[in-house]
């Protein structure tokens, strides 16, 4: 599904990714763990197409196609979704309005018809209910005045509605209490499918108790320094990142 080859990225002359190579297969849940400043968030932004990052070398292939030349909206239409660590607020734009605009923009980019309003409402209501999002929140400005947990649930609702092929969860567990963590994880697990893959970025093993990864990658100094199964996460939890910090340097 996703293949990253020898990716070198800098921002404002500071090198962040330094020859990163990573493959995520169809249906796979891959976790990326690593200390602060190892480049995890940068990786998620570069895959999603955030401007300001300068790609010096390498490629990112989605289903064999290099997406690096594509704008962020085209990548979204191609199936890339990023659940933000800090979702942005859009004042005055009702969540419902935003969701509809986003869904229809992607459908249009793919040459599909717009959703009928009734169908759209039905999907949103059902999705919101599963994630415990009250209906009146959908009428409020997107993320405006939402708590950290509410924002994260909203990200997962968007993910569910947009039906992406490749989902990146950037520290989705940060700021969540245990109950919210469970709800969010259940939301993610419900979306698992053989033709969808996940890249779960986290500091802590805790999230991986709920979203169980197939593979765990350890990232340090802008590259993947170790890859293993889910047991690798437990090992990290016990020993910390100290070994990897020196290993990569």
């Amino acid at each position: 599904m996703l293949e990253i080859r020898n990716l070198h990225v800098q921002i404002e002359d500071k090198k962040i990714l330094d020859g990163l190579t990573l493959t995520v297969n169809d249906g796979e849940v891959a976790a990326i763990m690593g200390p602060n400043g190892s480049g995890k968030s940068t990786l998620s932004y570069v895959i999603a197409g955030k401007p300001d990052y300068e790609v010096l070398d390498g490629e990112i292939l989605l289903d064999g196609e290099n997406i690096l030349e594509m704008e962020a909206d085209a990548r979204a239409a191609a199936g890339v979704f990023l659940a933000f660590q800090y979702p942005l607020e859009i004042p005055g734009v009702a969540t419902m309005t935003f969701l509809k605009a986003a869904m229809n923009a992607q459908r249009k980019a793919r040459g599909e018809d717009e959703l009928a309003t009734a169908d759209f409402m039905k999907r949103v209501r059902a999705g919101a209910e599963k994630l415990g999002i009250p209906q009146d929140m959908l009428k409020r400005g997107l993320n405006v005045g939402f708590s950290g947990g509410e924002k994260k649930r909203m990200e997962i609702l968007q993910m569910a509605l947009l039906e992406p092929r490749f989902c990146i969860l950037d520290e989705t567990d940060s700021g969540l209490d245990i109950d919210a963590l469970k709800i969010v994880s259940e939301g993610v697990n419900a979306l698992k499918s053989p033709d969808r893959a996940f890249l779960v970025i986290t500091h802590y093993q805790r999230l991986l108790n709920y979203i169980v990864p197939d593979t765990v990658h350890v990232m340090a100094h802008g590259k993947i320094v170790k890859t293993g199964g889910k047991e690798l996460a437990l090992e990290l939890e016990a020993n910390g990142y100290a070994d990897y910090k020196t290993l990569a340097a």
Partner: protein
Amino acid sequence: MPAVQETVEQVRAIDVDQYKYGFVTDVEMEVAPKGLNEDIVRLISAKKNEPEWMLEWRLDAFRRWQTMRDPQWARVDYPAIDFNDIHYYAAPKKNAAPKSLDEVDPAILDAYKKLGIPLREQEILAGVQTSKVAVDAVFDSVSVVTTFKEELAKAGVIFCSISEALREHPELVKKYIGSVVPVTDNYYATLNSAVFTDGSFVYIPKGVRCPMELSTYFRINEKNTGQFERTLIIAEEGSYVSYLEGCTAPQRDENQLHAAVVELIALDDAEIKYSTVQNWYPGDSEGKGGIYNFVTKRGDCRGKNSKISWTQVETGSSITWKYPSCILRGDGSRGEFYSIAVSNGRQQVDSGTKMIHLGKNTTSRIIAKGISAGRSNSTYRGLVSAHRKASNARNFTNCDSLLIGNKCGAHTVPYIESKNATAVFEHEATTSKISEEQMFYCMQRGLSAEEATALIVNGFVKDVLQQLPMEFAVEAQKLISISLEGSVG
């Protein structure tokens, strides 16, 4: 927001420099010679068969105007205007007092049709529009037609051109004209008093709720012509009226002057809701051409518990200089000002409001949203004052500016004066930029850069759009997006 998609498509379909209403209508016109002198003032008055007192009033204004000079305090920059290089009167030849639409030059009717303004009552009734709106169509210096006059007359409402009002209801005009904006008020208002040519007159009798929306559509067509219209709205005790004005002009390389005066009078318990969708030709992206919109609008809440609200969506004009204001004279009266000012290209906006609290327990509310893009500059200038006797005056002001790009500017200049210790005035102001983070977030969800901007802007102006009559809110929303075309990037 269903309009977003539509907006974006519309925006794509046009070029940056293309102004949708820039066409010129070819009509045989009667044009007064260029220049400003007493003879021109007499000519205008004679053309309109005005009573003698009106001519004297005009001449008095003209003489005063000659002793005045143009205001220099606004944050706008333009070369001195040569007032002798302007035509002060231009009227379609065929329009010598038409009795019905059939007598109006078809080219003019066609122009309004192109602008989407229905003038044929039967078409409106046939469902061209969802709800009935009576229209007064002003073409250069004259009103060409006013619709639904008879139906309105049944309710006792007078809706006609100011010229007609001067002939048919001189006592009403004489009583109220200049009573809110005095002849000597300011340079442009004084000029208007001397040479105003047409405009609308509205009179709502005691206790009547006007049965439909009233609107005036101003069109400047003739070259080198100034438009000086005068609007006077009187709401008698306990009455209500909602009025909307729209304006467009052809695309020309020269600047044209539009100096209007609008006076509103609300008596006891009356309410006037005045909305403007201003879309004069803004000039091209390099700042060539465009309308100078120098306008004095003021409402007098003369009666107790009366209410006047101004809602404006300003997207046009190369320079806007206007401060629709409320004089809160009656005890318990209320003034409101809701504004969206969009500037792009080289447009300059200096606009805001004045809320003058004179009576007891008066309240006012100001919500102003400025959006600047391109190399434009936008200034909110507002005055809130409480006089000595205005006990318990209340004002809430919220001014937000949104910047798109790095070359535009937004300024907020609030003046607050209180001479009464019980007055409570609140002022909030923010300036923000559409952040790259917000744009990326929206685009990550699949919205294009243009769609993302439209969505964020629509969210920003939502509070004000909600104040517009329904039929016009959607139109206004489209207008805003079109004005911002080319600003992303």
